[in-house]
């Protein structure tokens, strides 16, 4: 490792460690690298500007953010919840199941775990704790756990970012996430059922079945969104970026005309919020572009691939090692940073070991999401703590069983690649 690269990493860790925004930390660290190496300091601006100006797929990021924010505002979430209560509220652990199913459906539109937890999660926790049937800690824990499904089921911003660094198809990545997302939902519901039965949680009074069609009809247009999105991409009708625009337009029409839940003023607020998120993410992406340029010019990923292949690591051992590392990193770093900065280091090794990059990408995204609820520093735990004021200690005490089954689900995906690759192959993926 060269002197300039060592100093670059040192600057990065020190700055990020003392609380400098990650984007600025990377930017400054790259300047340290260029200065010590005696290169042109303008390279930083050049890499960010050219990178953002030339990559078409990144346009999906602001568009998905707009779509998610429109969906989370207004009364769309309430209609969806009514539908979920009518459908699964009658079973043991009822509201816990509603929570998971609502996340599954919502993930089809928001693509952001934090948005899910802060939006629909807050409403759910209120419902679960209202009559004292569920402890606040339990309600918060299952909400956090089910919010991790969001970015696994398409549309998914983390997967767009992975597609950017790995040069894989967004379409196949999205398809690859569908079954794993459902698996995560199933294991969470199983654990919820088990805990509810053991604790003897009271049953909800069921919504009469004859009301179900009515609830389904009001929720139906919102339920259609993921289908439109996937049809657009896989029917070969639109590119994934265009599909993101279609999703945003559909959300807008739905909220404004069909549900009549959107005023001009709230639309402005939604766009302003979307600008802030897009700009903050865009800056981190820009930072990652410079860092990847430096890492590539230092030839780090290839050296790492050489070393790991030289050790004769089996693909399974490699996957398990990487996943343990990602889970640990997930406790301290956020998913965007891990996917843009850490994952590219492993991609050449994957290619040499013959590990499928769609398979690797989906597992990496799932794992980053599980990292979001891993104590002590899962970001979702903090978000829920901030919006509901339920203490972290209570949430963490209840989150372990859910974390456990999610990790089991990850292991299952690692050992049975077909969970991920079956659906993309049905649609013509040849890997």
């Amino acid at each position, binding site marked *: 490792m060269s002197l300039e690269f060592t100093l670059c990493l040192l600057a990065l860790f020190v*700055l990020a460690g*003392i609380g400098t925004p990650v984007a600025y930390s990377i930017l400054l660290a790259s300047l340290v690298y260029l200065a010590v190496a005696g290169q042109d300091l303008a390279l*930083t601006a*050049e890499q960010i500007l050219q990178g953002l100006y030339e990559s078409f797929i990144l*346009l999906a990021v602001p568009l998905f953010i707009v779509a998610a924010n429109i969906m989370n505002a207004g009364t769309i979430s309430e209609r969806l919840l009514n539908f979920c209560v009518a459908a699964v509220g009658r079973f043991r652990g009822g509201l816990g199941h509603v929570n998971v199913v609502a996340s599954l459906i919502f993930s089809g539109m928001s693509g952001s775990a934090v948005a899910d937890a802060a939006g629909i999660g807050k409403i759910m926790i209120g419902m679960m704790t209202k009559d004292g049937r569920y402890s606040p800690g339990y309600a918060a824990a299952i909400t956090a756990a089910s919010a991790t499904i969001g970015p696994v089921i398409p549309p998914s911003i983390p997967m767009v970012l992975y597609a950017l660094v790995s040069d894989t198809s967004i379409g196949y990545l999205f398809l690859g996430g569908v079954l794993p997302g459902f698996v995560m939902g199933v294991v969470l519901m199983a654990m919820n059922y088990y805990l509810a039965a053991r604790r003897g949680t009271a049953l909800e009074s069921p919504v009469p079945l004859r009301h179900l069609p009515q609830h389904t009809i009001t929720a139906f247009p919102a339920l259609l969104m993921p289908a439109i999105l996937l049809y657009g991409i896989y029917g070969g009708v639109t590119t994934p970026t*265009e599909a993101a625009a279609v999703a945003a337009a559909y959300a807008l029409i739905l909220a404004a005309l069909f549900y009549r839940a959107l005023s001009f003023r709230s639309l402005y607020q939604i766009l*302003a919020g979307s600008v802030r998120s897009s700009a903050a993410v865009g800056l*981190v992406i820009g930072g990652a572009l410079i860092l990847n340029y430096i890492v590539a010019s230092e030839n780090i990923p290839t050296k790492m691939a050489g070393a790991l292949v030289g050790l004769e690591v089996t693909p399974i051992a490699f996957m398990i090692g990487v996943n343990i590392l990602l889970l640990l990193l997930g406790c301290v770093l956020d998913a965007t940073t891990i996917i843009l900065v850490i994952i590219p280091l492993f991609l050449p090794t994957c290619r040499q070991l013959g590990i499928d990059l769609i398979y690797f990408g989906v597992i990496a995204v799932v794992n980053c999401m599980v990292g979001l609820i891993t104590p002590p520093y899962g970001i979702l735990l903090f978000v829920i703590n901030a919006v509901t004021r339920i203490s972290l200690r209570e949430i963490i005490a209840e989150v372990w069983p859910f974390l456990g089954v999610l990790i089991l689900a990850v292991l299952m995906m690692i050992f049975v690649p077909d969970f991920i690759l079956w659906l993309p192959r049905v649609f013509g993926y040849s890997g």
Partner: protein
Amino acid sequence: MWSTRRWLSVFRWLGARAENMAVAMLAAMFLTFVLQIVSRYVLNHPIGWTLELCLTLWVWIVFWGSAFCVRDHDHVTFDVLYLSVGRRTRQVFAIVTAVAIVVGLLASFPATWDYITFYKIKKSATLKIRLDYVFSVYAIFAVAVIARYAVRIATLIRNGAPEDSPEADSP
């Protein structure tokens, strides 16, 4: 001389206009995209310039937004360590952060300016916009961020670290 309060109200007004501009750019980008889709799939008559306009707006949204709209808690930040230390240490951390940003961006500014102005000889592929105009938003971003963190250094030295978040709200 104007009072501090008057300056603050001017800055607030400018901040609101900057946000108007950012929202307008995002709305324009969204509409351009819809136009592109309609022209390509409904009218079967693809337009070439839409894609380039979207990419230009995207670059502008990122840097304009980062310069004027993004609040500190919107940033992706690793704050475990920061939150676990006392107020005095936080002040030191926050000052180091602000100084590093000011020094780094100032040091790279001349070279970056050369890079941007060099592009006056080149125009974009379809819309024929001069590329130095497209890239100039990075210079705006750099100047705004330098100014913002320079003011923050003064505030931090005078008032110490803010209570909760890693950094105070922008000056």
